[in-house]
C-alpha cells in the first residue's frame, strides 16, 4: 500500500495520546486499523498524524463489573469477544454477533470500540450497542464523559467525539431481568458488509419481556434504533401476534436504499423476517404455554 505521507506516534499513556491528538488538526486514533488503514491505502483518508494507542495499558479487558455493568475496553478485539467463554452468559447479543463480524483476519485485529467510533451505518457493533442501550466512555483533556450510544453517533462516519478525545471503553448497564438476545446478518459473503443486520436484546422475567432493544444495521444512513418495535413486545410473552407487530414496526423503522445489495423493499422484508426469527427463538416452549 502506498498511502500519503503521515506522522506516526505510539504513546504509552492516555495523557500523552490526548496531548498528541490536540497537537495536530488532522489526527486519527489507530486501534485495530481495519477501517482506517484500507481508507488510507485508497487515499480516501490522509491523516497527518496517527496516534497508535496499542501501547497504552489497561484498554484490552472486557468483563462483567461488580455493579452488574459490562465493560469492553478500546483494545478488545472482535476475536477476544468471539473466543470468550464467559461473554455469552452475560451478553448473548454480543456473543451472537462476534463470529459474524467481518472475517477471521479482520476479527483478529479490529476492535469493538473502534468499530463503533467508525460509525459506519453498516457496522454491526453499533446495532448491538443500540439494542443494549449502551454507552461510550470518552477520555479528553478535561477528564471523562459517558455518552449514550444514541447520542454518540450523529451521522454516517460522524460522532460527537472531540478531536482530542479518545473512546476508551463501551459500557452496557446492569440488567434487571435475565438477558436474552441474538444477532442475524444477511451478507453476500463472509466479510461483506451487512445487506441487513438485526440485533435484538431482551431482558426477561420468567416468560415476560421486561425490557427490549432492537438495533438495525445497513438499512439507513446511520444505525437505527427500532424503539417502537421494541416497545411492542415489552410486557408480552412473545406471542406470535406481538412478534408480528414488532417485525412490521422494525421494517417500518428502517429506511434502506436500493443498491447492488438489493432493493429497499427486499431489505425491509429481511428486517421483518430477522426480527421475527430472533424473537421466536425466545418464545416460551409450547409445553409451558400449554
Amino acid at each position, binding site marked *: 500500500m*502506498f498511502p500519503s505521507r503521515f506522522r506516526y506516534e505510539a504513546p504509552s499513556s492516555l495523557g500523552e495520546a490526548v496531548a498528541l491528538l490536540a497537537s495536530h488538526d488532522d489526527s486519527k486514533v489507530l486501534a485495530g486499523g481495519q477501517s482506517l488503514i484500507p481508507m488510507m491505502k485508497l487515499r480516501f483518508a490522509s491523516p497527518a498524524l496517527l496516534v497508535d494507542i496499542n501501547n497504552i495499558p489497561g484498554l484490552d479487558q472486557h468483563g462483567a463489573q461488580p455493579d452488574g455493568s459490562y465493560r469492553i475496553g478500546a483494545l478488545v478485539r472482535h476475536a477476544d469477544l468471539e473466543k470468550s467463554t464467559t461473554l455469552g452468559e452475560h451478553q448473548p447479543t454480543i456473543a451472537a454477533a462476534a463470529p459474524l463480524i467481518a472475517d477471521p483476519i479482520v476479527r483478529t485485529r479490529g476492535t469493538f470500540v473502534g468499530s463503533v467510533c467508525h460509525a459506519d451505518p453498516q457496522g454491526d457493533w453499533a446495532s448491538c450497542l443500540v439494542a443494549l442501550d449502551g454507552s461510550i466512555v470518552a477520555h479528553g483533556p478535561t477528564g471523562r464523559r459517558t455518552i449514550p450510544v444514541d447520542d454518540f453517533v450523529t451521522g454516517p462516519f460522524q460522532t460527537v467525539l472531540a478531536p482530542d478525545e479518545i473512546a476508551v471503553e463501551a459500557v452496557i448497564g446492569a440488567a434487571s431481568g435475565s438477558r436474552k438476545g441474538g444477532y442475524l446478518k444477511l451478507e453476500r459473503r463472509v466479510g461483506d458488509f451487512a445487506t441487513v443486520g438485526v440485533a435484538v436484546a431482551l431482558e426477561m422475567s420468567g416468560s415476560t419481556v421486561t425490557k427490549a432493544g432492537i438495533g438495525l444495521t445497513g438499512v439507513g444512513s446511520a444505525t437505527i434504533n427500532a424503539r417502537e418495535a421494541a416497545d411492542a413486545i415489552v410486557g408480552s410473552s412473545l406471542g406470535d401476534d406481538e412478534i408480528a407487530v414488532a417485525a412490521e414496526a422494525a421494517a417500518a423503522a428502517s429506511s434502506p436504499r436500493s443498491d447492488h445489495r438489493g432493493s429497499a423493499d427486499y431489505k425491509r422484508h429481511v428486517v421483518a423476517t430477522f426480527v421475527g426469527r430472533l424473537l421466536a427463538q425466545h418464545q416460551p416452549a409450547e409445553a409451558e404455554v400449554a
Partner: protein
Amino acid sequence: MALDEIKIGGLGASRRRVEDNRFIRGKGNYVDDIVLPGMLHMEILRSPLAHARITSIDVSGAWAIPGVRLVLTGEMMAARNLAWMPTLSYDTQAVLATDKVRFQGQEVACVVADDPYTAKDGCEAIVVEYEPLPPIVNPYQAMAADAPLIRDDKVNQTDNKIFDWEVGDKEGTDRAFAQADVVSEIDMHYPRSHPSPIETCGSVADFDRSTSKLTVYMTSQAPHIIRAAVALVAEIPEHMIRIIAPDLGGGFGNKVPVYPGYVMSILASILTERPVKWIEDKSGNLISTGFGRDVYLKGQIAMRNDGKILGVRMHTDSDHGAFFSDAQPSKFKIGLMHSAFACYDIPAAHLTATGVYTNKAPGGVAYRCSFRVTEAMYFQERMICAAADDLGMDQAEFRRVNLVRDDDFPKRTPFGFLTDSGQYEKCLDIGLEAIGYADFKQEQQAARKRGRLLGIGISTMTEPLGAGNSREYDILGIKMFDSAELRVHMTGKAILRTGAKTQGQGHETTWAQIVAHELGIPADDILVEEGDTDTAPFGMGTYASRSTPVAGAAVAMVSRKIRAKARKIAAHLLEVSEEDIEWELGRFYVRGAQDRGVSIQECAMAAYSNVPDGMEPGLENNAYYDPPNLTWPFACYIAKVEVDPETGVWDVLRVVAVDDCGVRINPMIVEGQIMGGLTEAYAMANMQFLTFDEDGNCIGSNYMDYLLPTAWETPGFELHEVVTPCPHHPIGAKGIGECATVGGPAAFVNAVMDALKHTGVRNIDMPLLPDRVHDALTTGNDISGMPPVKTEA
C-alpha cells in the same frame, strides 16, 4: 525388470507438487520480487469517468515533486507513434488516452519516480479537465439509434457495432423448427466477471543502451507472443528482446493480453535508461484489465414431443467494452460459442452474433475457459433445462434422449466441430446414482409440504480444449502448436523446457511425470523450466486448457525422440542390432534375453562417452506439436440446493462431479483443478460479477464489492471419474483445467430453478443473489439481464 511407474512418479502418480516447496516457504519469485540496481517505479493515473473528452492535462504539479523522473501523457506517446497499439482482435486500443476516455479506469498518464509513494503523489498532482459525455453500459444502449459514437477515432466507424457474424445451417434449422412439436425459448445474460488472479499484472522493463537489449520481467501467460508483439510494435529486433515470466500468482486468462502498463514501462525504461517497475494495484487490475463473459442470449430449441431435439437457434449480443481487444486465438468472431450442444445429437443449428462497443473496460479474455466456451455451455445447459421443463420431461431423461452415444464417434457437432470420444451416458448415470436422483422427487415433494424448497440441477457437456489445430486457430497468423526441449545429462538427469507457462497448473510436477512415463527417468531427476524466451523453445503459452493437450503432447513426443536415439545407443552397448532391442520402462534389453539390458541412465552416459561411429554425441532434442484436433473432455455436474423462501438465500447441500478428461497424469492435480473450477462455478452462480451503474462506474473495483467466495461459502465436492482416452493425444490425455468452471454454473442455476419450479419462474440471471431469488419467488417473474444499477439517493 521394468520400473514401477508410480514409484518413479510417472503417469497416474499423485505426486506432490514440486513447486510448492518454494511457494509454501515464501520463496517464490514473482515480478514484484524483482529488484534491479537503479530501478524506478511507475504508477498510472486512471480516468474517473466512463466517457469524457479530455480538454486539458496539466502535469507541471507532478514534475515539481522531488523524485519524479518522468511523466508520460497520451500526447507524448503519440509523438512516438505509441499512443495506440494493435489488439489481438485486429482493432486498436489506446495506450494513453489522447482524445477521449472511453471507460472508467482508462490510462490517462503515468508517473515514474524514485519510489512508488512518490510516483503516486505525482499522479495525484496531475490536473486533468474532462468534458463528460453520455456513457453506454450495455449492448442495447450501444445499439440504440441515437447512441453516442464511442469509437470516433476510427475511420468509417459510424455506429457502436463491431461485428455481425453467423455460423451453422440457417435453412436446415428453419426446416427443423417448422417440423417441431414444441419450441422452447429462453433469453438470458452471462454477466461480466473478472478472472482476478491474486497477483495483479506488472512488469519490470530494463533497456540496456550499451547492448541494445530489452529485458522485461512480466506477468505473462504467453511470453513468446509478447516478444513477437513487442518486436512488431516497438520495432526492436526480436533477438534483442527477452521476456521473462517468473512465478505467476494465478492467471486465469487475465495475463494473456498486452496491457498499456507494459508498453509504458518499456518506453519509460528506454527514455530514462533505468529499469522501471510497474505493479498494478488491485483496483487497477479489476477495473481495467481483461474481463470475462458479458454476453446476452436469445435461445430457441425445436423438439418433438418424445423429447428429440430437432434444431437449435442462438443469437448473442456481446459487450466488448471500449476496444475490441478480445484475447482469443480462434478464427471466429465470437470465439467457440458454436461449440454449444457438442455433446448432443442435433441435426441442425444456427448461431448469429453481434458484438458492440460500450464504455466499459476492454479486453474480453477466456476466464478459465476456451474462448466463449463458458458462455456456450451455460447457455446450452440452461436452454436444455428450460426445454425439458417446457416439454414436461424429466431433466435426466431429456438429456439421455439427446446425448451422443458411445458408438457414434467420431461425430460432427451441430455446428461442425468433430468430437472423437466419450462415454456420456455412463458419466450421467454415475452422477445420478451418486446424488440419489431416483429418490429425489419424493424427497422434494415431502420437503415442499414442510415449506422447504429443494432442487437438483444437472449440467452435462463436452467442450473443445487445447487450442489448437491450425484449421481453427491462429494468433496473428502464427499456428497454435507448442513445443518441448529435453536435454538428458550424462548422469541420466534431465532438464525440460516448454513453450507453455505454468501459473499454478503444476507443470513443473506433471511434465516430469510424462518424461518419466516415456523414458523411465524418475520424475525427481527432471527439472522443468518455462517462461524465459531466451531459453525456452517458442510456444504459445498456457490458457484454454491447452498445456496438456499441446505442450504435454510435445513433451511426450520429444521424449520418444530421445528414446529412439537411446535405443541406437543401447544396441551399440549390447552389441546387437537395433531391431533386436526391446523397451520396458527405464531400460532396453535384448529380445529373448530380458536380463541382458542397459538402463536409460547407462545410455545417457554412453551418449557423452561411447557413441557408435557416425552418431552425434549428446542426448537432447526438441519437438513441435501441432495437434490434429481439439480434445473433448466430458463432464456431468449435479448440484442439490435448498432455497430459503423467506430470504432467497440458497445453500448448496451436495455437489457431484463426474469428469472424463481421458488419461490422468497426476490424479491429485486433476482433482485440484476440478475443485478449483467448481469453486469458481459456484462463485459465478452466486456472487462473483462486475456490474456498472448508469454513469459507467464499475461496482466491483475492490474485494469488498467484487466478491470471491471464501472457504466458508464454498461447498464440498464429491468427485467421480470415467476415463475415455483421447484417440489422437500421445498419452491419451484431454484438457481439464476449465471443465468445471465451464460446466459448473448451469448445475447450480438449474438446481435453484428446480427448487422454484412450482412458482412458474423459468430464469434468474446470474448471479443468483438472495434479493434476486426472493424477487422471483414472490412475484413469479423471471429476473433477467443486468441493467445498470440504480442507486437511490
